[in-house]
C-alpha cells in the first residue's frame, strides 16, 4: 500500500498500463509535453515517447474519432476530452461511432478505447465546466461509464477500462484531485460493473458515485442512530443492479444522491428499477437527491447550495427513515 493523491493514482494507472501493453496510447490536449492540464499524464511522454503520447489540437471530435480509428486498427488509445462538458463537441464520435462500432459491424470490429474527462463540478468553474453528464453517456448502448471517487478506484477503474475491449468513458473528479488515499502496490483492477459497499447498514440504502460520494460518506459518518448501507456505484453503466437490489431488499429504503440535475438523471434509472424490483420490500418511497433544475452556478456559496451537501443528505436520510407506508 502507498498513499497517493487522486491524480497521482490516475497517473500511475496510465504509467502501468502503457508499460504493460505497448498498444496503449495517450492523446489529448496538453497531455504530452505539459503532462496534462492538471498533471494526470505527467512523465508519460518521457517514459513512452512521442509516438505513443501526443499533444493534440483543440479538436475533440477529430481526436476521439482518431482514437477510435486507431482502436479499430488494433491499438488501445486513451484519449482525453479535458472537461466532461466538452464531450458536447465530440458526441457524434462517442455515441454514433465508438459506442456502435461493435454492434454495427456485428463484432467484425471492436473499439478498445478509453475516453477520460474531468468533471469539475464543485470547483467553481461555472455553467459550462461543471456539468455532470453521466446520464447521457449511460443512455448509450455499447458505452461503459465509470467514475472512481477514491484514488484506488480511479486507478483500478482506469486500468480495467484500458483492458476492456469496448469503449469506456472514464470520468474523474477534479474536486478530489488532491485527496489522498491508499492504493495497492500490486496491479489492482477494479472490475467494471461492480459497486463498492463502503459501509454496511440495515435501515436505508444510499447509492451514490463520483463527486457526490465523498459528501455522502461524510453525511453517513455523522448519522448516529441510523444504519445506512452506503454504496458507491463506481460504474454507472452497466450499473451493479444485484448489489443495489439486494441491499434495498434488506433495508427497504433507497436514497440516491448525485451531483447531476435530478430530472432525467441517473438516479431516475436506479430509483425506477428499485421501485419496480423491490416493490414489496420498500417501506418508504424511493428518493433522489441531486442538483436542482438549473445550470451549475459559479459562485462558491451558490454552487454549495446547488450540490447536495452532507447536511442535505442527512436530512434526506432522516426524512426517508421517518416515512412509512400508509396502511393499505
Amino acid at each position: 500500500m502507498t498513499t497517493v493523491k487522486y491524480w497521482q493514482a490516475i497517473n500511475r494507472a496510465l504509467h502501468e498500463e502503457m508499460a504493460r501493453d505497448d498498444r496503449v496510447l495517450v492523446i489529448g490536449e496538453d497531455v504530452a509535453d505539459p503532462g496534462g492540464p492538471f498533471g494526470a499524464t505527467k512523465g508519460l511522454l518521457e517514459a513512452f515517447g512521442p509516438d505513443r503520447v501526443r499533444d493534440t489540437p483543440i479538436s475533440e471530435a477529430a481526436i476521439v474519432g482518431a482514437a477510435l480509428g486507431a482502436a479499430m486498427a488494433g491499438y488501445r488509445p486513451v484519449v482525453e476530452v479535458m472537461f466532461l462538458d466538452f464531450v458536447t463537441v465530440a458526441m457524434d464520435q462517442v455515441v454514433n461511432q465508438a459506442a456502435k462500432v461493435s454492434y454495427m459491424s456485428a463484432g467484425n470490429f471492436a473499439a478498445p478505447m478509453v475516453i477520460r474527462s474531468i468533471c469539475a463540478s464543485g470547483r467553481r468553474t461555472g455553467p459550462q465546466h461543471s456539468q455532470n453528464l453521466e446520464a447521457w453517456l449511460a443512455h448509450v448502448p455499447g458505452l461503459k461509464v465509470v467514475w472512481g471517487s477514491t484514488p484506488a478506484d480511479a486507478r483500478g477503474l482506469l486500468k480495467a477500462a484500458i483492458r476492456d475491449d469496448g469503449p469506456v468513458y472514464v470520468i474523474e473528479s477534479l474536486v478530489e484531485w488532491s485527496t489522498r488515499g491508499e492504493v495497492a502496490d500490486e496491479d489492482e483492477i477494479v472490475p467494471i460493473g461492480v459497486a463498492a459497499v463502503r459501509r454496511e447498514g440495515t435501515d436505508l440504502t444510499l447509492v451514490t458515485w463520483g463527486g457526490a460520494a465523498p459528501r455522502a460518506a461524510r453525511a453517513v459518518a455523522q448519522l448516529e442512530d441510523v444504519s445506512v448501507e452506503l454504496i458507491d456505484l463506481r460504474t454507472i453503466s452497466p450499473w451493479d443492479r444485484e448489489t443495489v437490489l439486494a441491499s434495498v431488499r434488506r433495508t427497504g429504503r433507497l436514497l440516491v444522491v448525485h451531483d447531476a440535475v435530478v430530472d432525467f438523471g441517473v438516479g431516475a434509472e436506479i430509483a425506477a428499477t428499485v421501485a419496480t424490483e423491490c416493490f414489496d420490500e420498500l417501506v418508504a418511497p424511493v428518493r433522489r437527491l441531486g442538483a436542482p433544475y438549473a445550470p451549475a452556478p459559479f459562485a462558491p456559496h451558490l454552487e454549495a447550495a446547488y450540490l447536495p451537501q452532507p447536511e442535505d443528505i442527512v436530512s434526506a436520510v432522516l426524512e426517508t427513515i421517518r416515512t412509512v407506508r400508509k396502511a393499505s
Partner: protein
Amino acid sequence: MTAVRSQDVGVDRELAIDLYRTMRRIRQFETTAGELFAAGELPGFIHLSIGQEAVAAGVCAALDDADYITTTHRGHGHCIAKGGRLREMMAELYGREGGYALGRSGSMHIADNTVGILGANAIVGGGIPMAVGGGYAAQLAGRGQVSVAFFGDGAVAEGVLHECLNLAELWQLPVVFVCEHNGYAEMTPVSKHLANAEVTDLAAAYGMPAEKVDGNDVAAVLTAARAATARARSGAGPTLIEARTTRWRGHFEGDPQKYRAREEITAMTERDPLTHWRDVLHAAHGVPPAELDQVDADIADLVGAAVEAARAMPLSDPGGLSRHVYPEGAR
C-alpha cells in the same frame, strides 16, 4: 484537371481490365439494388453512386488489403472496390442473417476487417476522423499502410473535416482525403453550401498537397491516388484528392429530383466513366468490346447470384438483437 492517357501512367492491359471490372461490379451492384428498392424488396434508404464509379475504382486500385478506408452513406462503390464481398453486402441491404452485420445495419454501415473497410457511415463527415486514426495506427505500425477517407462535397462544410486536415498534416499521417465532388449535398447544389467549391484550396491552406482530378476518368484518379499513397507510404504525409464527378441518381432512391433539370442528368450520363473506359480499353489496349461484354455478363451473374443468395438466407434472428453491443470475446 488535365486529361490523362492510360498508357502514360503505367496502366497495362490487365490492370485496365481490372479497373473496368471494378467499375462494372459497382455499377451492376447498384443498378440491381436500385431496381430491388424500387420493387419494394429492399427496405430503408439507399444512396447510389452510379456515375461516380471511377473514383472508387481508381483510388482503391492503389490500395492493398492492409490499407484502410472509411466511407459514407454513398459507400457501396468504395466497399466493393476495396474488396467487400457482394453477397454479404447484398444480404445486408436485405436485412438478412448472412449480411455483413447480420442485417442490423443496412446499406450505410458496411465494414470488413479482412480488407480494411473501417466502415461506411450514415453521419456526414463521421468517418473521416476514423480514417485519420487508421493513419495514426499505420504510422505507428510502420508497415507502410495508408488510410483513405472518402467523403462528399457536402461533408466539406462539416467542421470535423477541417479538424482532420489539420491533425493529419500536423502529424504527417499516411492519410489520403478523397473528396467526391458531385456538386450536391442532398438536394442543395454546391453553390449554396460551399463558399469556395475548390476543395483543394482548403487542403492547401493547411500546407497539404492537393490535386483536383476528373473523377470520371479512372486513370486520372488512379494516377493521383498512386502519387498520394506513395507519398503517404514514404512518410511524407497526407494528400487531398478532389475528384469532380457526377451523381446520376437522386440523393436517395425515390428522390424525385425536382431540384434539377432532366438535361443536367442527361449531360452527366454523357460523361459515363464506364463508357469512357471501354473506349480507352479498346483504343489504347486493343480490348475488343465482346470481351468486355463478357465481363459485364459475368458480373451480372455474380450480382444475380448475390441477390439469390441473399433472398435464400434466413431473416436475421431477433433473438440476437443484443449481441455485440459489447464486443464478444477477447481480441
